[in-house]
């Protein structure tokens, strides 16, 4: 019998019925302590954790009769759309045409049990992942068949309709089979101003020689708590390119674990964070090179205004005998206001010698000379700041391969930094 550690009831109770149905997972959750500032991975967001711990949430109830227009989703040029309303998939709002190479089905515990060990253990010991593992419901399984081209973009939208104190644990498992191709846009939208809690857990299996482009747009309501987990597993010859943009949430936290389990692989994890007001956004990533011959790249940029706070912790692991690795990482932070704060901790852990790994981090403000240059040409100081801030962040958007997603992100960015 495991020793039971006291759990924050307000976060666990909304999912009690699902947790009760998965006894093994429930025990795993019960054995974990809710993170605190003392935990190295949470050291900069102790206040957010304390606030979250003290809240009482209720299970979200899907609001009926919503029209697609009312959701305000980004205009993504997609061939298929999968919409979740308050955690439950909506048949009326989703649109999966027949004859596609991809298959969407309800996720089952059995499908999760078939995950490769390396993927399933990505978030071992993580409280929020354990909560999702035990308490998720209404998840989906998205599959692309062997050697098929998905044919276009799949738009997956998680909408929180803003029921007061509602909590959801979205779950999505993506399986891109050998030689397949998939373009995925994942979007989180919050309607209204209510304080909500969501802890999505997305897993992506990139099979041999498969290509997956994964864009995430997070625009939860500015009072909400968004704690996301993303686990990616790459097989031999796989390509995975992702860009995540965080605009919403009072507190947003994203942890990404990419396990690069084969040679001739490419893994890109780019990120863009624009926070203002009292928003806090924390991104942790782990680029785990487990086999020889692979390449990874990561560009993470944060624009911090108001009394906002950005945190970045990017780990690059190169395991023993994983030779011939090229891994690059750059984190740049722009503080645009007096009260803003940025903390960054790039981290390299290298156990092989034939590697080229670099990381860089900068924190700074806009260049006074550049501002002067623009002003000398008649641009107002406000416009000059806006232009330069936008240009700083836009470097990340250039890496987004899906054009409609790119222009939506550009629009959201321009709004965020205005």
């Amino acid at each position, binding site marked *: 019998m495991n020793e039971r550690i006291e759990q924050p009831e307000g976060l666990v109770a909304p999912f009690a019925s699902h947790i009760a149905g998965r006894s093994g997972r429930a025990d795993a959750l019960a054995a974990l302590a809710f993170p605190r500032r003392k935990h*190295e991975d949470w050291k*900069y967001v102790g206040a957010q954790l304390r606030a979250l711990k003290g809240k009482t949430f209720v299970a979200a109830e899907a609001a009926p009769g919503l029209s697609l227009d009312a959701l305000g989703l980004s205009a993504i040029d997609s061939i298929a759309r999968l919409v979740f309303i308050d955690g439950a998939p909506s048949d009326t709002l989703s649109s999966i045409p027949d004859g596609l190479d991809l298959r969407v089905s309800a996720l089952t515990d059995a499908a999760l049990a078939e995950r490769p060990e390396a993927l399933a253990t990505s978030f071992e010991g993580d409280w929020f992942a354990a909560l999702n593992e035990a308490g998720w419901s209404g998840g989906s399984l998205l599959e692309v068949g062997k050697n098929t081209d998905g044919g276009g973009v799949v738009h997956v939208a998680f909408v929180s309709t803003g029921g007061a104190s509602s909590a959801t644990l979205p779950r999505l498992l993506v399986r891109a089979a050998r030689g397949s191709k998939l373009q995925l846009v994942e979007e989180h939208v919050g309607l209204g101003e209510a304080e909500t809690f969501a802890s999505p857990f997305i897993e992506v299996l990139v099979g041999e020689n498969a290509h997956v482009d994964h864009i995430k747009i997070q625009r939860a309501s500015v009072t909400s708590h968004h704690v996301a987990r993303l686990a990616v597993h790459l097989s031999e010859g796989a390509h995975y390119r992702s860009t995540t943009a965080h605009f919403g949430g009072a507190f947003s936290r994203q942890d990404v674990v990419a396990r690069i389990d084969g040679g001739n692989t490419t893994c890109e994890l780019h990120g863009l964070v624009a926070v203002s007001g009292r928003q806090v956004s924390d991104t942790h990533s782990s680029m785990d090179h487990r086999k020889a011959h692979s390449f990874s790249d990561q560009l993470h940029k944060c624009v*911090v205004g108001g009394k906002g706070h950005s945190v970045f912790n990017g780990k690059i692991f190169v395991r*023993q*005998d994983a*030779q011939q690795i090229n891994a690059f990482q750059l984190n740049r*932070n722009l*503080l*645009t*206001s*007096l009260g*803003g*704060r*940025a*903390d*960054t*901790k*790039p*981290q*390299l*852990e*290298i*156990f*092989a*010698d*034939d*590697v*080229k*790994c*670099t*990381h*860089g*981090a*900068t*924190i*700074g*403000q806009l260049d006074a000379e550049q501002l002067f240059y623009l002003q000398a040409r008649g641009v107002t100081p406000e416009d000059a700041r806006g232009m330069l801030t936008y240009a700083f962040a836009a470097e990340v958007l250039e890496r987004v391969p899906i054009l409609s997603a790119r222009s939506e992100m550009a629009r959201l960015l321009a709004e965020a930094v205005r």
Partner: protein
Amino acid sequence: MSSDLQTIIDTPYKYGFVSDIESDTFPPGLDEGVIRRISALKGEPQFMLDFRLKAYAQWLKMTEPDWANIRYTKADYQAISYYSAPKVKEKKASLDEVDPELLAIYEKLGIPLHEQKMLSNVAVDAVFDSVSIATTFRKTLAEAGVIFCSFSEAVKDYPEIIEKYLGTVVPIADNYFSALNSAVFTDGSFVYIPKGVRSPMELSTYFRINTENTGQFERTLIVAEAGSHVSYLEGCTAPQFDTNQLHAAVVELIAHEDAEIKYSTVQNWYAGDKNGKGGIYNFVTKRGLCEGARSKISWTQVEAGSAVTWKYPGCILKGDDSVGEFYSVAVTNNHQQADTGTKMIHLGKRTRSKIISKGISAGQSHNSYRGQVKIAPGAEGARNYSECDSMLIGDRCGAHTFPYIDVANPTAQVEHEASTSKIGEEQLFYFKSRGIDEEDAISMIISGFCKEVFHELPMEFAVEAQKLLGIKLEGSVG
């Protein structure tokens, strides 16, 4: 090509010998009584005893830190003897009166005290185990008004300065090892540079650990008054022992307005044998306070020895326009582990700091850079530049980087760069095609890799350090 390098790496510890000098040693164990005895033996004033007891009470409440990227068997603090002094019968008036056996050890280490007086312009305060034996050049320094003496002498002669500054930069409760040091330290060095004085020579202390099972707890305090300047060198070698020895030193530097302190270290304690048996535990707390405006503190270190190193020389940049610098080369081989780096805490306006760290790991060793750059909300216009490069030699070693950058002022500019790589085949080929053999090529590439740090070392040290790297890495590249 790995075999060539391997033979060079495997060169046994050059300075491994045990000198047989009669020691006055306490039985192992630590309690309040031991602390009172140390204090009484040294004839300390009441404030020192109070300081020690307060530190001991604090230490009892603390637990040994485990966040560092190092693995070791924790020391049994009750199995250590906390006092060991070479038996000194009376004060020596000149070097001739010093135990000839002791002088012979220095001879072996290449620091002939009497020759040094004439040949180089360096004053040496040799700390043998815990009590300073001889201090040279005292007179020249005294003429300039510089105080350079052992810590115990300073406690007797300048208690008011000690009382004012002791524990102000590294508080008793700073960490587990600093608390332990504060309770039981037996000796160390004290330097005081009066206002406007430029020290007429570079000050140097050679540390040695002798006598098996004796932890050495050094305490160094350097106070530079307004407008003064001092360069301090510290170098260490130790005899070869099987049981792990603990070294928990505390170094405190205080620089007042416009003062500059340059602190250089070459550390080459016994690192254990090829299989990781034995070696020194080096748990050191070093910190400098740039108290006054425009003051500057610069740390330069070459860390080549010790089985386990845990050391983060830092600067608190409190005065406006003050400057902190950190230059480091850390080399690990066989089963050595080093977790080292720096802390730059920017409090004052327009404070600047620069960090250059070079890590080289070979064999099965692990080398970590851990650093923090913190810009406080009031540190307007602060500037930091950090560069940490790691080089891996062999496929069973590890290089790790843990930089923490916390910025709470938008006018600050902080840059951090790090890279990890190995000696390129192409670079080696380039040298070889010009008739330079592999070993020389490697040694040249490594010197080039560390050049920026060696440039900061005083001349004698730079030469010694370069040689040391050569010896440490011989035979390991391939």
